[in-house]
């Protein structure tokens, strides 16, 4: 029996599951859904990673080790972006050579390039009858699903501060998470999209001036709440308007198209791309300033080079516009007291300034 698994980020493992569920040969293969990130996964990853590598590497490695221990024998990993370009290769070496696991490793990216045909060949492990045509059809579907879930979740995030009935909202959120696993056709997606938008619009009952805070920075910390100490959830819970641009659909589908635009919008500060999401951090901060946001929190894992590139530029922007930006670096720290203190103080400061 083939048991396939993959590392997790945020809630996106649901979409990967949905995709795999449609292409595997169920008589010979089953899917092991990765656990959500937790302390155990981080510890597994930390133990087996180079000390100075950034935390997303540790999380994804830990997630894979955890799945392997549970019996997975095929692992799919996606590389791409900054040093992440070689993450998959290094992780494969660690898992196979250092730790002695015996399994098939499917890496979809080489450097920054999607190796489609190689991936199709490898996908035959999961289903020997898989046709390129039907694979393309499923990819089309999954892209639609990814767009739908990102759009609707972003829509909720943008409006959560205007909604009082949090219980109802939570129900809708859970239904969407469920749908990410269960929806099977493109038709269903468009129906659900209309349905949820309507339901959410009905809940919106105020438009008052809450503090508006943007979150920018490294993609993994932004999209995975455990690895950023639930920053986004906590801010939303306290009733602030929170804006985050980075989503998986942005990174996979829109990023390339947008780069020129972003550079152009931030040409006073950037002449060249500064790698991974560094350009986005700068351009999005400028955009948030223009939109009248009160402050920006920039987060990154320890040692994230592209974001280190972005930081001095952000400091300059902060000075030029006298716009508050808070910087925080996450590592594998256990206690989040220090982080809470800084966020609280930052928000107090924003509130004082607003008065």
């Amino acid at each position: 029996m083939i048991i396939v698994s993959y590392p997790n980020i945020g809630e996106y493992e649901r979409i990967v599951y949905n995709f795999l569920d449609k292409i595997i040969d169920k008589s010979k293969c089953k899917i092991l859904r990765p656990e959500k990130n937790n302390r155990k996964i981080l510890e597994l990853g930390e133990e087996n990673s180079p000390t100075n590598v950034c935390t997303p590497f540790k999380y994804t490695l830990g997630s894979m080790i955890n799945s392997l221990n549970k019996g997975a024998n095929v692992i799919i990993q996606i590389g791409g972006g900054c040093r992440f370009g070689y993450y998959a290769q290094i992780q494969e070496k660690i898992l196979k050579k250092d730790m002695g696991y015996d399994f098939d490793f499917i890496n979809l990216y080489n450097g920054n390039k999607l190796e489609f045909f190689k991936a199709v060949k490898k996908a035959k492990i999961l289903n020997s009858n898989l046709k390129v045509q039907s694979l393309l059809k499923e990819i089309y579907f999954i892209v639609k699903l990814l767009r739908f879930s990102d759009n609707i979740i972003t829509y909720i995030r943008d409006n959560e501060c205007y909604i009082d009935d949090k219980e109802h909202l939570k129900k809708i959120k859970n239904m969407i998470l469920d749908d990410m696993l269960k929806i099977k056709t493109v038709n269903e997606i468009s129906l659900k999209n209309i349905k949820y938008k309507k339901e959410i619009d009905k809940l919106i009952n105020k438009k008052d001036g809450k503090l508006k805070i943007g979150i920018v920075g490294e993609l993994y910390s932004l999209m995975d709440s455990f690895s950023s100490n639930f920053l986004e959830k906590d801010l939303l819970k306290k009733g602030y308007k929170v804006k985050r641009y980075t989503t998986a659909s942005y990174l996979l589908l829109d990023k390339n198209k947008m780069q020129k635009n972003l550079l152009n919008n931030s040409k006073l500060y950037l002449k060249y791309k500064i790698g991974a999401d560094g350009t986005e951090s700068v351009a999005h901060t400028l955009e948030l300033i223009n939109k009248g946001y009160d402050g920006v929190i920039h987060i990154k894992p320890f040692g994230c080079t592209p974001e280190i590139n972005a930081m001095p530029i952000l400091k300059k922007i902060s000075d030029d516009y006298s716009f508050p930006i808070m910087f925080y670096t996450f590592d594998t720290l256990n206690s989040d007291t220090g982080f809470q203190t800084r966020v609280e103080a930052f928000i107090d400061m924003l509130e004082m300034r607003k008065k």
Partner: protein
Amino acid sequence: MKYYVGIDIGSISTKGVVIDENNKIIASDYIWTNASPIDASKRLVNSLIKKSKEEWLNNIYGIGTTGSARKLIGKIIGATSIKNEITAHAVGTISKYPDVSTIIEIGGQDSKIIIIKNGVVIDYAMNTLCAAGTGAFLSSQAKRLGIEVKEIQDYYKRANNPAKIAARCTVFAESDMIHKAQIGYKKEDLIAGLCNAIVENYTNNFIRGRRIEDKIVFQGGVSRNSGVVESFKSKLNKEIYVDKDSHLLGALGVAIISKSESKGDKVKLNIKDIEYKIREKECAGCSNNCQVVYIYEEEKLLDTIGNRCENCKTNI
């Protein structure tokens, strides 16, 4: 007259003040935390009560906690306001120096800078990840040299030829100190070098890229050490104010905050002399996997810290 209590439970020391409606400090105390904030708070509260006069003890309308153990102690003591130390320090200092524009604060394990314009905090920074250049380092080095922390300033005054000591990292600074001692530097020169290194570390971390304007107020435990104050003066070449209660300004700030947040109800200042047990556990109640601190009053669950929902309370 209404009275308010502010307690600042830091990593090294625990401070408490009682203020009246005019923000005047009428009782205060300062003791070592000794890595046991619950114990320290017990001692602090009891000593405040001992120092008390009937009048204020029965007319308390707000209790605030701040400092790194603010949540834990806040829950145990039933605080009406729990505030982070950055805001508390800013509020405390502004109440005494309305025209302050820069607050330099160096405490036991963290250091910060707060920039204020027209009485509003517009920028702050706090050390991250590492406690180099803070009070903890001063006290550990003093211990290694066999002197009391309080004596550091006397040694500083006597130094003629301060040793140059690396400021970036505490571990490197310590090796520097050992090397300099072994080639024959006097104790006072080593200690003066140490004070300079603290200042150097601070300016490298915080002042770089910021404009430091008058009036500058220096506070936190380390400000009681005139050696570091002198070193700051010569480095920045500016007048530096150190309040006579500079170590209490965080507690004062949170007392003032509790005044402004007070709903007008009387509260009682006491801390039971029973054992509080703390247990830390990763909750498995939902997929958030919060790292929850459970506080037990003897065997009864008093409260939790770090949880994002209520599941952890039923799911122990």
